[in-house]
């Protein structure tokens, strides 16, 4: 049974792949065009001559203790943030909010009263961050700092509690912990992801082109399916002693595979040409895999409503460009009006863009993109199920 299913799939898939290579659409649309465009955009808009990005971060220090001061000091001494980061002090949260909203500061950190004391005594503490979509880099830096502070506070709290449990008197515990290795906040913000400037734009355009061209690559498969129906060869395949869905799935798998190769090649070219890091490779691959799956399903759904190959081409182009625009593949999402930013999350592009920003900006691992991966996969499953229903009705499967 498995042999009867897999063998015809391989036959159809092999035929489709040879056709794509023979007519030149595979190398052109899957490799050359996205890599070339991503490189041109990266060079034109993210070149070395661009001024480096600046981030001003407001600080509301209601604590007055050692912790907030030491966080600022060490952040300014981090090599990758030298010349990028400036701190500005505000008396309270309201003033900081106004500054962030007015664009004076890109983001702000608020240390509440008693923060240092709470951390010293093992009770932990809470730092809040105020962000503005107008200054994504500052938001990324501020959130990165808060993440670091949070892990330091957790480590410190754990050490204090363990010491207290071990019988160290409460009035000596702070000194004891510092003497034994938890000497205070040591900020080690990792360099590359927040280095900003040209690298960020190379990642943005590289990933944008990769994500958008996935639609075009799968689109060639959709076109070929419609061409086969017009030529009668689809019916001939369906009349063969194989399951009715063989042609559809065999071709779909090739579209999926080529699109995956295309996105990964664009990713690799971005790394090799610009030295850009898209973040943790496992996370990036998971996101691209989910995206290509969703794109395959969406394009097939669109094609299932087309009558001719030209119509399938038009519909795929339309969906690809609309999703690319809404999902931040062409223009960064934070440059879009607020209502459009919300809309971006109905597209897989939007989720992939958000996930890649997270990976590239924070250096987080694959667990940070589980939600985008799940949502994008879900979009693919829904679109795929609808496509299959429509394909059965349209005598494709």
């Amino acid at each position, binding site marked *: 049974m498995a042999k*009867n299913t897999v*063998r*015809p799939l391989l*036959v*159809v898939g092999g*035929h489709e792949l040879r056709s794509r290579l*023979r007519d030149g659409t595979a190398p052109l649309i899957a490799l050359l065009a996205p890599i070339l465009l991503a490189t041109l955009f990266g060079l034109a808009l993210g070149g070395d001559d661009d001024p480096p990005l600046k981030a001003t971060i407001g600080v509301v220090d209601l604590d007055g203790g050692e912790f907030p001061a030491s966080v600022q000091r060490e952040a300014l001494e981090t090599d990758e943030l030298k010349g990028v980061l400036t701190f500005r002090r505000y008396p309270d949260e309201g003033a900081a909010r106004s500054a962030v909203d007015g664009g004076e500061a890109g983001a702000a950190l608020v240390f509440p009263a008693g923060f240092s004391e709470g951390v010293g005594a093992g009770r932990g503490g809470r730092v809040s961050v105020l962000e503005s979509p107008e200054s994504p880099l500052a938001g990324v830096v501020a959130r990165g700092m808060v993440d670091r502070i949070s892990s330091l506070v957790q480590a410190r709290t754990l050490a204090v509690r363990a010491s207290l449990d071990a019988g160290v008197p409460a009035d000596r515990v702070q000194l004891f912990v510092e003497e034994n290795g938890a000497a205070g906040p040591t900020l080690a913000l990792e360099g590359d992801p927040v280095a900003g400037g040209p690298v960020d734009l190379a990642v943005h355009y590289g990933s944008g082109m990769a994500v958008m061209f996935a639609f075009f690559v799968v689109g060639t498969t959709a076109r070929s399916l419609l061409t086969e129906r017009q*030529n*009668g*060869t689809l*019916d*001939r*395949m*369906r*009349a*063969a*002693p*194989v*399951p*009715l869905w063989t042609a559809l799935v065999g071709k779909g798998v090739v579209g999926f595979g080529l699109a995956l190769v295309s996105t990964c090649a664009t990713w690799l070219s971005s790394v090799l040409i610009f030295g850009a890091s898209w973040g943790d490779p496992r996370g990036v691959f998971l996101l691209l895999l989910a995206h290509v799956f969703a794109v395959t399903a969406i394009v097939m759904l669109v094609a299932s409503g087309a009558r001719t190959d030209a119509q399938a081409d038009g519909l795929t182009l339309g969906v690809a460009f609309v999703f690319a625009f809404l999902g931040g593949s062409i223009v960064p999402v934070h440059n879009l009006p607020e209502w459009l930013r919300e809309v971006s999350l109905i597209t897989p592009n939007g989720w992939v863009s958000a996930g890649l920003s997270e990976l590239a900006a924070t250096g987080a691992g694959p667990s940070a993109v589980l939600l985008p991966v799940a949502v994008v996969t879900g979009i693919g499953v829904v679109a795929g199920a609808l496509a299959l229903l429509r394909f059965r009705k349209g*005598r494709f499967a």
Partner: protein
Amino acid sequence: MRTLTREDGMTPALVCEGLVKRYGDKAVVDRVGFHIDEGEAYGLLGPNGAGKTTTISMLVGLLRPDAGSVRVGGVDVAEDPVAAKRLVGYVPQEIALYPELTARENLRYFGRLYGLPRRELTTRIGEVLELVGLSDRGDDKVDTYSGGMKRRTNIAVALLHRPRLLILDEPTVGVDPQSRVAILDRVEALVAEGMSLLYTSHYMEEVERVCTRVGIIDRGRVVADGTKRELVAELGGTDRVELVLDGDVEAAAERLRVVEGVSEVVATGSSSLRLLVTGGRHVLPALLAAVGDAGAVTGVEVVEPDLEAAFLHLTGSTLRD
């Protein structure tokens, strides 16, 4: 309709019963049923839009019927479509080939899809190319072929896996007379070798030549089914009269319909009429008189009862309507 049992000694090549296909409220195929015995050549005749291709699509598993059943060589198409389709060689009405590939490449692809082992396939491709007379052109691209050569390659693909039942849907549309003869010769040879055949065509003479039994389908229903002799016998003493006239064909048809002995009158062209007439030659003077000043009759032919007349009698139309 015959029931399929092992006791028959021979399983029919095809049995379909009560086939129905609806699009919205309209039944395009309405309770169609017929059977084809092993080694029998069966012709399905019907005007455009009668439901022939829709019926064939259900027979070969391309369309799911809304009701009814199809058994190919005893295998139910709904229950085991893959096994049933293995027994069928389907030649669609249009040329279903890849024009950018050679005939040999087309045959290799479809042969592999039909599950033929690689080594056997190479030999078999040579055999079917020989069979359709294209051995010397097998390595040329299909888009360099004439219409007749494409049609022959179209048939060759369906023969690769040695099917028990060959289904040909209008296999000679758009081919030159020489290729048509070549195709019919080969189809006849296949039937002579024992292959069962379902043949649809607009050309009555092709069906008369190739098929031993004929089903006439009209408006989604099989209105008659039998040998040519049986169908013609239903006409009794009715002859077919072909009239050629110079004048108003429609007006002449109106006048001829009321002549005693005339059962059907249809226009077959801008200056020709076909009539079914009881009493043949004896009614001719009355027919000529009835046309009167509607036109000048320039030719008359009285034909003994044939399949064309049977078709007109059963459907009230000509095959190419």
